[in-house]
């Protein structure tokens, strides 16, 4: 394991108060508190990687790490958020680095633009409720998949998985104010995609 990765893992472990579980307790926690989230974890992984095999690897790796660091998990606390945090870190540290294809969009640049003072005036999202009603899940999913991964992530965590801003802040290691603004930008990006798609497909009705 590369030293940098080892240090990150160690830091992650040290951030939490150490528990001392017996082997039976570890198995119990793993089954009752971790495995119940495997569906959500796989969906999250799939929406990050867009690939079935990569998603399986990512989820499996997450559960391996969860088991390895189980003494850092306090029983009865938010296991789902804890697991999502590990998966997100694994995706950034391992998957993205391993991926031969570099990120096509520099999200920092995108976020900088959307955070600028005049960004609001440049965003004109003309999306009607009726247009979204006419669309099927595939089309909405396509729009979500079309936005940069860091923006896609906040929509998944909030709108699909129901995490609060505070939980998202912990999962993503960003301030809660950034969660709020990033989520707003992400939703705007998605609306723009949907509006453009609707126009292209002739869904958008004229007044």
């Amino acid at each position, binding site marked *: 394991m590369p030293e940098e990765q080892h240090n990150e893992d160690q830091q992650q472990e040290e951030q939490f108060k150490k528990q001392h579980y017996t082997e039976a307790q570890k*198995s119990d926690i*793993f*089954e009752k508190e971790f*495995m119940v989230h*495997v*569906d959500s974890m*796989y*969906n999250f992984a*799939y929406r990050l990687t867009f690939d*079935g095999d990569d*998603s*399986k690897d990512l*989820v*499996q790796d997450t*559960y*391996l790490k969860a*088991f390895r660091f189980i003494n850092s998990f306090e029983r009865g606390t938010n296991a789902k958020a804890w697991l999502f945090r590990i998966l997100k870190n694994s995706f950034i540290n391992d998957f993205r680095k391993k991926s031969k294809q570099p990120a096509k969009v520099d999200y920092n640049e995108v976020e900088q633009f959307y955070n600028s003072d005049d960004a*609001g*005036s440049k*965003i004109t999202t003309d*999306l009607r*409720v009726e247009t*979204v*009603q006419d*669309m*099927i*899940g*595939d089309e*909405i*999913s396509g729009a*979500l998949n079309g936005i940069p991964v860091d923006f896609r992530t906040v929509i998944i965590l*909030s*709108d*699909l998985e129901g995490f*609060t*801003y505070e939980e998202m802040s912990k999962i993503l290691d960003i301030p*809660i*104010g950034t969660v*709020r*603004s990033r*989520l*707003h930008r992400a*939703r705007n990006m*998605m*609306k723009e995609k949907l509006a453009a798609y609707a126009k292209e497909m002739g869904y958008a009705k004229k007044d």
Partner: protein
Amino acid sequence: MGEFRDWFKSTFKKCYCEQGNLVDEERFQELVQLVLDGEADEESKKIFEEKIRTCVKSNFTFENEKKIQEQIKTKLCTHKSDLPNDLIQTIRNSVNL
């Protein structure tokens, strides 16, 4: 939940002109999303609810945003990938359970 109280107040102020008319819809949508996400504190929610009760444009923006978000959420939630049959067993095997 009080993290956004000050931000809410200053943003709310910027959304309306002196006559109380909504002049910045884009900014107002940020407030709407905070409320819809259940992240606004009680005081902010009160101010918000009072406004959408009395301002037609604010009410329209709120209802529109709410319906769009509901539609997107519902359609995304029904469009999930199926869990591979062998994944659960593979995970259990990998940790020797």
